[in-house]
C-alpha cells in the first residue's frame, strides 16, 4: 500500500521540478489512487481509471518484448506519460512537444523517491533484530571473558 503523504510529497516535488507536467497521479497496480495533482478525489479516480485502461491496452502490444515499463502517447494537444515501477505507477500529462527524456527522468525519480521511502521504513525492523543479536554477542563475549587476567611478571 502506498503512503498517501509520501506520494503527495513526491508529486509536489515533481511539479515543482518539472514545469512541463500539467496533471499527474500516483497509483498502484489495482488502480488505487495514492496521490494526484487534481484536487477532487473523484476526478483523480477517473483520471487513474483512464490511465490504467490506457496501460492495459498498451500492454497487449508487442508483448513478446517483455513487460512494458513506460509509454508516451504524443498527440497534437499534448502528451500522456505512464511509468511503472513494480506495483507503483505514475501518469502525467504535458503540453505539446515536451522534452521527453526529461519528463521520463522526472517521473522515474518520483517513483524512486517513493520506493526509497518505503524501503527506509521496512529495514527499521531488521536493524532492531540486528541490535538484539549484537547485544547477545556482547553479552556472550562478556561471559566468556575471563574475569582476571594473569599478571605479567615484572620486568625488574
Amino acid at each position: 500500500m502506498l503512503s498517501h503523504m509520501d506520494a503527495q510529497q513526491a508529486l509536489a516535488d515533481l511539479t515543482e521540478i518539472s514545469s512541463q507536467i500539467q496533471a499527474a497521479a500516483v497509483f498502484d497496480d489495482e488502480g488505487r489512487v495514492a496521490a494526484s495533482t487534481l484536487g477532487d478525489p473523484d476526478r483523480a479516480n477517473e483520471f487513474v481509471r483512464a490511465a490504467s485502461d490506457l496501460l492495459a491496452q498498451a500492454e497487449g502490444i508487442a508483448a513478446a518484448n517483455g513487460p512494458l515499463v513506460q509509454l508516451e502517447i504524443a498527440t497534437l494537444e499534448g502528451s500522456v506519460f505512464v511509468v511503472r515501477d513494480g506495483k507503483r505507477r505514475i501518469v502525467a500529462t504535458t503540453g505539446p512537444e515536451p522534452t521527453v527524456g526529461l519528463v521520463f527522468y522526472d517521473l522515474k525519480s518520483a517513483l524512486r523517491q517513493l520506493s526509497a521511502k518505503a524501503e527506509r521504513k521496512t529495514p527499521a525492523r531488521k536493524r532492531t533484530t540486528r541490535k538484539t543479536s549484537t547485544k547477545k554477542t556482547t553479552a556472550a563475549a562478556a561471559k566468556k571473558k575471563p574475569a582476571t587476567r594473569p599478571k605479567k611478571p615484572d620486568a625488574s
Partner: protein
Amino acid sequence: MRRSAATFLGLAGGVLAGAAFIRRRGVRQERVDLYYEDGSMVSLANGSADAARLLPLAREILQRWR
C-alpha cells in the same frame, strides 16, 4: 566557369536539403512510443491499428484532465 557552376549547384542542393529537413522536423506527428523492460522501444505512427486504439484514449485524458 564549370567549377563555379558546380559549387553553386552543390550549395543550392545543400540549402534545399536543409530546408526540407527542418520543415519535416517541424511537422508535429501523433505517435505512440512503448518502452519495454528489455530496453527495446516500439514506436507506432498514427495510422497503425494499435495506435488507433491508444490515441483516442490519450486525447480523452488530455481533454478532460489537463
